[in-house]
């Protein structure tokens, strides 16, 4: 039975799962869904994943959400190269340490930028108070500083000499505010060098392909049909702006 993976590549955690599966030649049925069409709230998807989140995999009868859990599961099942999620327990703990920390730092603050700069004003037609935008940028800058000082330091990758799940999860999140027009790599040569190494380790073609939807959001935002997102408008505004 084929492995099904439900993805919208606009979403950061969907990209990490996509890149991981493709890079490791894992065969899967790519179920393309659109967050902007509210697919996650449909009845059909609710049966597959009651948590209604992306990404989700369906491996036979086994359904799983949360990109971190998904990639660890796939790494084990498909015996991917050790560097992604090392068997050495201390190296593995370092990967887990980053994967844990990033939820309420890089991910949380990075995600806001594209919503505040582009999606909320241009698709939902709502105004984002200047103070909220400034706070979001300040918080992301704080997170990026910690990322460089504590997790990257002077190493080529977060854990050791090779790319791991930590770098993959980090890069897809950092690319999101970058796509929104915030140059996170400006005046951060270390971060830029790391990003170039990660892109090369993944493969430039795969990396660019996965990021295409996000990188073109500034041009495409006006073409997104607001009807898909507007039922969620109150929820989105409450989540981000209250």
């Amino acid at each position, binding site marked *: 039975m084929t492995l099904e993976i439900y993805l919208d590549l606009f979403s950061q955690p969907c990209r990490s799962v996509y890149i991981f599966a493709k890079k490791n030649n894992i065969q899967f049925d790519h179920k393309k869904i659109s967050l902007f069409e509210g697919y996650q709230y449909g009845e059909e998807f609710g049966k597959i994943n009651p948590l209604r989140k992306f990404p989700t995999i369906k491996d036979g009868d086994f359904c799983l959400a949360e990109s971190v859990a998904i990639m660890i*599961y796939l790494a084990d099942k498909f015996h991917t190269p050790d560097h992604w999620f090392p068997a050495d327990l201390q190296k593995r703990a370092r990967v887990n340490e980053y994967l844990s920390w990033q939820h309420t730092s890089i991910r949380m603050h990075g995600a806001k930028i594209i919503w505040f700069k582009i999606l909320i004003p241009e698709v939902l037609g709502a105004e984002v108070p200047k103070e909220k935008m400034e706070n979001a940028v300040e918080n992301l800058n704080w997170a990026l500083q910690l990322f460089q000082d504590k997790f990257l330091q002077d190493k080529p990758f977060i854990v050791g000499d090779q790319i791991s799940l930590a770098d993959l999860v980090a890069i897809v999140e950092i690319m999101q505010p970058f796509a929104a027009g915030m140059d996170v790599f400006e005046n951060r040569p270390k971060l830029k060098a790391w990003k170039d190494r990660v892109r090369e380790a993944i493969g430039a073609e795969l990396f660019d392909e996965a990021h295409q939807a996000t990188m073109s959001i500034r041009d495409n935002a006006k073409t997104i049909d607001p009807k898909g997102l507007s039922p969620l408008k109150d929820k989105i505004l409450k989540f981000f702006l209250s």
Partner: protein
Amino acid sequence: MTGRQAVKAYLDLMSQPCRAVLIFLKHNKIPHTVEQIAIRKGEQKTPEFTKLNPMQKVPVLEDNGFVLTESDAILKYLATTYKVPDHWYPKLPEKRARVDEYTAWHHMNTRMHAATVFWQEVLLPLMTGQPANTAKLEKALSDLNGTLDKLENMFLKRQAFLCGDDISLADLLAICELMQPMSSGRDILKDRPKLMSWRGRVQSALSDSFDEAHTIVYRLRDKFTAKL
């Protein structure tokens, strides 16, 4: 491993993830020492502690020179390094994935919303001397209710514990977060029999180590409710 020293845990038991780490160490009889770091006194900001953890956060685990932060990483490390019963962090990939799924979801759901209730109702008023902001507290409680709905209807839908028929790291992390609002005397589970049963099962499975770790919460509750 000869000559292996006990692990050292830097903890403040007012912190939910610190309690989870201590309970796990004690319950599984993992040799350890504890160094108390009082956040309310700013002890996480001393030069020594900052050298150990530049993030100035607890919990921190030190294992013979290996320093680790983040409670879920710490718990998974301990569960796989020491011989603990399999149910804590099962070896079977599908079962393990369920625990990984919960521990990822936990950050922006259980942890975030339960901690915000505690912050609005207890910590902020204690720090400022002002009464709690009603609107912000109501919002925090509403967000937490959403999380409790999901815990009941999804994770606990057909099973006794969050990730299966037996207690795991998921239940340990969740229970410590859900105990935090009790500091004000508020029982967030009181109208939810399913979650109350689950809490009973978790407490029962953890026995003494649970109450020992939560003494500080009970004391704060008694102090807080005496003021009212």
